């Protein structure tokens, strides 16, 4: 039962995938809670609007870039392979990561039509704040989703999404590391896989 819940929640929250590894200032729980509340309202507003799918996708990409520290997420996801990658590969990785995140978000818009979002509580965790929410979509069990928020450059940003104890940034890092290790530690294999995935998804849309 738990496995099903966490996996449903993980998917429900995938549009907000994010991370960070940089130093940050302490953030007040109320600020984080308010930030997540506003961000959630915007997200739900876009997903449930009557706009076309492509328009929704464009709006969602803009929103994610506003509220998620995508570059920092990318750095975390690349992990120790950042030291192996050349500067060119690092740059290419970040470009592909932004694109892939956008495509993955777009892929899930239809599935979450009618989604509702409720903010429950906020708990400090070191310099970060974990904001607990409940995400409900039609014909799906409600999912408890935790958003880890950190202050970055004076602005609150989402740095991770936690569902039933599973971190989306860690999951994504392990996913990408799986590709690299299966290809002899070559970062280029990851870049090819990302490019291939983007081509596949864009062809299907």
């Amino acid at each position: 039962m738990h496995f099903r819940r966490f996996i449903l929640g993980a998917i429900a929250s995938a549009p907000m995938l994010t991370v960070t590894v940089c130093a940050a200032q302490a953030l007040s729980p109320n600020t984080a809670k308010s930030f997540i509340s506003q961000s959630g309202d915007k997200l739900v507003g876009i997903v449930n609007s009557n706009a076309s799918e492509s328009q929704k996708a464009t709006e969602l990409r803009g929103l994610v870039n506003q509220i998620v520290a995508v570059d920092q997420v990318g750095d975390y996801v690349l992990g120790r392979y950042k030291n192996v990658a050349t500067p060119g590969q690092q740059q290419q990785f970040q470009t592909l990561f932004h694109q892939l995140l956008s495509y993955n978000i777009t892929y899930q818009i239809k599935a979450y039509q009618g989604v509702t979002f409720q903010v429950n509580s906020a708990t400090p965790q070191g310099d970060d704040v974990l904001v607990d929410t409940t995400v409900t979509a039609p014909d799906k069990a409600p999912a408890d989703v935790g958003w880890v928020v950190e202050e970055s450059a004076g602005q609150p940003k989402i740095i991770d999404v936690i569902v039933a104890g599973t971190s989306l940034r860690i999951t994504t890092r392990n996913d990408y590391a799986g590709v690299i290790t299966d290809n002899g530690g070559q970062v280029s294999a990851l870049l090819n896989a990302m490019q291939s995935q983007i081509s596949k998804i864009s062809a299907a849309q």
Partner: protein
Amino acid sequence: MKTKLKHRLRHGMAMTIPALALATALAGCATAPPKSDTADYQAYQQLNDPLEPTNRVFFKVNNTLDRYVMKPVAEGYVHITTQGIRNHVGDFTSNIGEPARMLNFMAEGHPTDAGTSLVRFLVNSTVGIGGIFDPASSLGYPETDTDFGLTLASWDVPPGPYLYLPAFGPSGVRDVWTYPFDWFATPMEAAPASAALSDFGYSETGIHLVNTRAGLLGTIDQINATALDPYATFRSLYRQSRASQLQQIQQRDTRTWPDWYHQPAK
């Protein structure tokens, strides 16, 4: 008695032995990087998936079985049922697992949680009409999950290498023992053996599998569509989930006295 034990062994171990035997027979091991390559060697150790080549074979086999059998069946099931019915089916199969949870909580040293499982089983089996409804949650006894793998973990048994089992999916050398233990602890196995009970047990297992798969229809599709390496993604999700479940059990500081008993002064 002897016949009954044989019956239990035959049915219970039938769940696990073929998978383990097949895994052993076909075992292919991942090649460890040299220790001189510190970062890679540490990553390999942390991954703890020495049977990865074999696991990936079973992952593909399961995906094929899923594509042609489980997924179409689950889609048909969703087509003819409502979310409410599926919730009640989930409650029903969950209720059958309560005795096993009670035993596990006792073994983990959580008597209050064991009591909760017992109350849930008694209330839901009677007032809840065989577990179809879950009045126990409304009475303040919410479902709390555990299993034999987590019990072993609470005894400091390490997780061991990752296993991807045919039909069962993600597991590990420690967690795999959940299947025979929890099977033996179902009410059907505790009752005197009979053909009708066996048929009921098989039917319950079947409906549980279909109901669970139905709940994951969209999500598994999405993981397969968005993950670059779905095998590594499922492995990561499984391990994080198990670590989280264990942490919750270890951090749980439930009292061992009822409401009417005054808390001892500290």
